[in-house]
């Protein structure tokens, strides 16, 4: 579903990504693990088509995101670290607005359905976004992706700032989406949450993909050791 083949990206004299290869299958949850500045957000921006690689190729469902921006973005949804919506609108109004931007018009029941699917409580639907927690805003962000029927979901530091309960809810939601066929790429430095959520983990350090492993084949302690080992080297 997502192929990143020998991609390199530099900013002036700084090499952000160095010969990265990724292959993410349909319905898979892939986690990019790495410290700040490792190249996680750059990878996401390249896949979203906000940046073009210096060399190499990227393909999402067979399309080049730099050249076929419109078509690729129709199939993708993006949840940034801070999901900032319009504070003067409620959760359901925000969802309605973002849907209308894509040309989709849903009735109130359908919109409530998307929010319920994401675990946002009914009583919160009509409240202004300004009063939402980070976790609640993320749920609206995911509801936007659902409403759009996105087959690819990219998340940047989704667990950052969430309490354990909200983080756990998010993991469960992402797993459910993957089961329904959504391909998910998440960038994070939360070892525990990544192991809990992802199918596969790629460790990114100083622009290089240093290790890929099956999330379930390694314990939390082992993952931590492997990760820290690569960080030291």
């Amino acid at each position: 579903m997502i192929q990143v083949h020998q991609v390199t990206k530099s900013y002036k004299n700084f090499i952000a990504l160095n010969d990265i290869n990724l292959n993410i299958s349909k319905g898979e949850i892939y986690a990019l693990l790495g410290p700040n500045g490792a190249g996680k957000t750059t990878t996401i921006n390249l896949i979203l088509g906000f940046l073009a690689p210096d060399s190499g190729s990227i393909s999402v469902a067979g399309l080049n995101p730099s050249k076929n921006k419109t078509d690729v973005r129709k199939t993708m949804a993006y949840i940034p670290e801070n999901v900032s919506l319009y504070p003067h609108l409620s959760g359901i109004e925000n969802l309605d607005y973002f849907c209308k931007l894509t040309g989709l018009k849903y009735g109130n029941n359908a919109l409530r359905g998307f929010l319920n699917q994401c675990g946002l409580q009914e009583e919160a639907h009509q409240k202004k976004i300004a009063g939402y927690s980070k976790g609640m805003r993320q749920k609206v962000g995911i509801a936007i992706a659902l409403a759009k029927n996105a087959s690819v979901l990219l998340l940047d530091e989704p667990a950052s700032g969430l309490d354990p309960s909200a983080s756990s809810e998010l993991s469960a939601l992402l797993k459910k989406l993957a089961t329904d066929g959504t391909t998910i790429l998440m960038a994070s430095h939360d070892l525990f949450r990544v192991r809990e959520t992802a199918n596969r983990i790629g460790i990114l350090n100083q622009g290089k993909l240093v290790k890929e492993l099956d999330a379930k084949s390694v314990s939390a302690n082992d993952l931590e050791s492997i990760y820290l080992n690569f960080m030291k080297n």
Partner: protein
Amino acid sequence: MYNIVKNEWQALIHNKRLTGLLGGITLLLVVIAYFGVQDARIGQDKKQQAKEQIRQQWESIGDYNPHGAAHFGTYTFKPTTALTALDNGINNTVGTVLQLEGHRQNEIIHSPDSQSLMQSRFGTLKPAVVLQFIIPLLLIFLAFASVSSEKEQGRLKLLVMQGVSTRKLLFAKAISYWIIGVGILILALGIQLMLFAGDLHADIVYRMLLLFLFYSLFYWIVCAVTVYLSAALKNNTAALTSMLALWVIWAIFLPKIAGAISEETHPLPSRQAFSTAMQEDRSKGIDGHNPLSEQEEKLKDSILQVYNVETVDDLPINFDGLVMQADEDFGSKVWDKHFGALDAILEQQKKTFQWSGLINPFASLQSLSMGLAGTDNWHHTHFKQEAETYRRVFIKTLNDKHAYGGSKTGDWGWTTDQEFYNSVADFDYETPYIKHALPVYKTDMALMGLWFFGSFFLLLFGKSKNTLS
């Protein structure tokens, strides 16, 4: 695009500070427009009363000597309309009342600015001042964060992921604020039209429509450039400071610089030099009150030859009347020469100033606003020339009566009856139809059009690395 516009307005309504600012400025405009119209109405009524009184005095002058009547003269007034109440241009500086009399061309008087203790750059507060200076500032304050806040809040990527192109976003944002500017403009012009409803005619309506068009174009330019800078620059602060700096340059510095360049390249003579030159030329002609001048002798010889008499006492006409008229004719030539030269310099200055619109759309707007309101120098000159043309006919009628009406040379006590004075038509000035005035503003219109299309293409094709960073 409709959804983005609607969302912008909803956000504005929820922002109490901005709503308060918008409401306050709109109220200010309504108050200024209302009191401006009342003020104009009072001025209009006073002018009408004065005109009627002067005519009544003329029509009850009784049996009077025509030369004496020429010195009695009359007064004429620049018209007050819904447009002058909107933008009074240079009228407050150059005056609105002109005395027409024999032997001299007076200056237009009653300039409120010359009598005011409060001299300010903006003069009397008319709706045009609010529409030109304050509404664009308001639009800048409303629009400066339109795209930069989407970037700062992290919503821009979400919008793009929903299929909204940067181009569509910029246009929608610009349109949402432009509509607010146009709405305020409609309110201001609507008040003028409503309160002057009884005095409207087709030309005023055409001028109003053109005013609406060009102010709308200017507001589009301000909105488009503000939204572009909001997208192109790194953050809200950079966008606001840049656009405010541009507004100050457009509204304050460039007009002063353009004015200085116009005056430097086409300098006007000083008042003293102008008066001296006119007096010098005047002194070469016939002086109607000095019977010893050389030119008068030549005239006398030619008239005596025509009538085949020996002395002026033998003439069947009043030679004094002919001398008066010859004096007038010469004075008119001197006036035409000097004021013609002055008007030519002013025209060159205006053209130079108009071309500054290439880098400053505000200059084009001001020129068009005053021109369409009929309160700029071109209309002032038209009024002056029409009044002078009437004065010449008026004085000639009186001088001819003095010469050929039945009196003899030296008979300064001769009078003619009221019936003759009633037959002398009053001066009714009409502002020229806009179709005759429009060619004067073709540069302003063309440059405004250029700026409009330029700002349009700026949103369409303008690229910035900051838009999605």
